[in-house]
């Protein structure tokens, strides 16, 4: 597939005429979300809550398709008369790996009427009014896993993004010309980078992915120069590191995964960047990594100035199902037992919802939001679900829920402070899991198992009370199947998401009534 169709059904462009000088002051990212969408989650909170009120429950049914455009992956050299798109080229590859297709699987940013759209090795700037291309940048890759790119960051007048072969690249936001690039992880160790960077003050926070048993880490680079400021490993890398007691030995922990591949959130009051970590590795065979495997599958708070761990809460101790906890959490200023609290909530891939005190890391709520998840034996007094070893991949087969993709995956949830509800997808299905490599040394990566799909029981969309983890309303998607779509909510209490059946839909965020749909094509 050489072209992709990008469809924008809902465009709310600020009144300003298209400006050619894009400048996003990093200080603005801490403000509530209004006209522009200038960081992965719109603002630092992860709420995906827009303050715009122009579209509301009475007029949402009038929304119609504004335009569609085909995203052009080709390298173009402009027209003879000096017009047309000239693809800006970069990269450390030899130009012999053909990456001229891909899919858009990230957040599209919007600033001053310009959209910034990505696929692996590609960035496009487009006019938000009609989808026409303003510039195109193509990175010639060295290879690596080309699964996705989750979007760009904007810092002053530069665009910063990751490449699958582990470069952090800065472009001029107005022209697409490259400012600099720097290597952020080892290509030889089979890291691959997909995360949308998050800019905070003078620095850019980046994470990476890996499937070959390498340790996860989060890094801060100087947003102006690309110089490394700090590097935080998500697993212990020496005998003195915290969490080492939850691993059998240093070889296991230093090959233990926990990759930071989905953007987290930032609390300016405490200067904490709070993010979810990936699954431990080897993914399905935990035999050589007995223990809880900190800080994999955890909510982790890191001080942005120092890069040091402030607190953690493990949402999935000793995972053996590839259910990372990388899902973007949400900062909630809420009330618990009559007391105002600074909270953070997450709906994890393993089917459990958690609310944590985001200042101290104190556990407040654990509740299973999946109707079928069957992998835990009980919830510990400290709030972590305890894995049932009988639901690991075993030679004669185990019937496990959820499926590999989880109850929810990386697609972001939303929170609306008016309704007090956390909106997430809920996918309930089963797999049979067989252990195919019972070697006591454990397998590697995601190997060592055979997975057979059994089926979907149901898929639903939930509005969860962050104080209890219980659904206040729940909409079952007709026909089952997996539904993975991100969520947006507004000051008018609308909730937008995809239904997994080619519809973009709007709910009444309070009641769960469906108010509108548009059959825009693949919406997840």
């Amino acid at each position, binding site marked *: 597939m050489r072209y992709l169709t990008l469809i924008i059904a809902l465009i709310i462009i600020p009144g300003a005429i298209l400006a050619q000088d894009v400048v996003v002051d990093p200080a603005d990212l801490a403000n509530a979300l209004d006209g522009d969408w200038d960081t992965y989650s719109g603002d630092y909170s992860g709420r995906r809550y827009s303050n715009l009120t122009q579209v509301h429950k009475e007029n949402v049914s009038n929304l119609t398709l504004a335009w569609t455009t085909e995203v052009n992956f080709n390298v173009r050299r402009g027209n003879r008369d000096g017009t047309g798109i000239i693809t800006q080229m970069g990269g450390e590859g*030899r130009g*012999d*790996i*053909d990456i001229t297709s891909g899919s858009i699987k990230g957040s599209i940013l919007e600033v001053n009427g310009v959209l910034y759209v990505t696929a692996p090795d590609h960035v496009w700037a487009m006019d938000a009014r009609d989808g026409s291309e303003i510039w195109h940048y193509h990175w010639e890759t*060295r*290879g*690596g896993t*080309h699964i996705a790119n989750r979007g760009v960051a904007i810092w002053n007048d530069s665009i910063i993004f990751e490449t699958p072969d582990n470069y952090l690249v800065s472009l001029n936001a107005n022209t697409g010309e490259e400012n600099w690039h720097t290597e952020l992880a*080892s*290509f*030889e*160790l*089979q890291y691959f980078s997909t995360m949308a960077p998050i800019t905070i003050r003078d620095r850019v926070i980046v994470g990476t992915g*890996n*499937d*070959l*048993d*390498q340790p996860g880490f989060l890094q801060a680079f100087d947003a102006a120069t690309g110089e490394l400021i700090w590097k935080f490993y998500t697993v212990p890398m020496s005998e003195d590191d915290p969490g080492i007691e939850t691993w059998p030995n240093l*070889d296991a922990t230093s*090959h233990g995964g926990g990759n930071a591949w989905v953007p987290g959130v930032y609390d300016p009051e405490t200067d904490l960047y709070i993010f979810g970590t990936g699954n431990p*590795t*080897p993914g399905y065979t935990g035999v050589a990594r007995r223990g809880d495997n900190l800080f994999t599958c955890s909510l982790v708070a890191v001080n942005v100035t120092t890069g040091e761990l402030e607190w953690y809460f493990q949402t999935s101790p000793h995972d053996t199902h590839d259910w990372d906890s990388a899902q973007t959490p949400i900062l909630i200023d809420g009330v618990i037992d009559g007391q105002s609290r600074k909270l953070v909530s997450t709906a994890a891939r393993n089917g459990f919802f958690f609310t944590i005190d985001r200042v101290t890391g104190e556990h407040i709520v654990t509740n299973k939001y999946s109707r*079928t998840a*069957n992998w835990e034996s009980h919830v510990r007094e400290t709030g972590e679900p305890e894995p049932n070893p009988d639901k690991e991949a075993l*030679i*004669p*087969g*185990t*019937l496990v*829920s959820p499926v590999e993709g989880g109850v929810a995956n990386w697609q972001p949830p939303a929170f609306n402070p008016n309704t007090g509800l956390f909106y997430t997808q809920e996918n309930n299905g*089963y797999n*049979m899991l*067989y*252990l*195919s*490599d*019972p*070697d006591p*040394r454990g*397998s*590697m*990566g*995601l*190997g*060592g198992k*055979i997975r057979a*799909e*059994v*089926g979907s*029981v149901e898929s639903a969309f939930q509005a969860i009370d962050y104080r209890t983890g219980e659904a206040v309303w729940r909409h079952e*998607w*007709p*026909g089952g199947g997996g539904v993975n779509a991100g969520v947006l909510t507004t000051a008018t209490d609308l909730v937008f998401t995809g*239904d997994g*059946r*080619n*519809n973009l839909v709007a709910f009444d965020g309070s009641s769960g009534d*469906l108010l509108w*749909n548009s*059959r825009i094509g693949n919406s997840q």
Partner: protein
Amino acid sequence: MRRRLKVLSVLILVWTFPATAQENQPELVIANPNAMFIQQQRALPPLEVIERGDDLYQVNCRLCHGPDLRGGDQGGPNLLRSDVVLVDIAGEAIGEVIVQGQGSMPTFNNFSNEDIAAVAGYIHAIKATSEGQGSTPPVDLELDILVGDAAAGERYFNQECSSCHSVTGDLSGISSRISDAYILQNTWVAGGRRQSGRGGVQTTATVSTQSGETLVGRLLRYDDFFISLRTEDGTYRSFTRRGDSPRVELDDPLYRHRELWAELTDSTIHDVTAYLETIK
């Protein structure tokens, strides 16, 4: 020995990629430009060098690093995920560890440069056979999944399944028709080879319109805003849905199976599979 021969046959497959440089070159040459990982992109030395590396490995390295390079009884680390192996191109990094030792690994001063290049070539050749998502090279084991109690499975079947199924009717000769026990187990738990689509178990939809029309047919597509079906006479019909209008009732023959998944224990699954395995 059987395993070693198998490894060599895999090596030959790797070796026959087109565009592979035939000389024993020190510099990086792209062996397979379509490969996504550098360990698969790099050229390998000639087969006789790899075979010599294999011999050297078995004598000097196997005890600690294992016959499959994944670590051995003497505590040597897994070479297939080792930083040294992953960054090495043609023995320069691996050779340093061989000659100088590392941690509890002794020095091997007797290794010549040719020996180092050969062992490195052998390690890289095995590494190049690793499968995607960080997996090991293929592990080919015959694992017996038939651990259940067939008599207990029969009792469960008679109690819970026999209202819809019969081993003399629809399931007659089931284990002859599905001879692979994995597939047999996956199929009966799921409730059929495919849950939907051609040849699979079909959901029947009954659509009652406000004008009083009632249509019955095979469900095609269904969401909150739309339903389409093919009626028994082959007619395609579709309707826009608003709330409960038109009224839709679905008859999903797998409904009971979907309920069962929450109830079934793994030992019951194994028992029923063992029972069905006896239905030849």
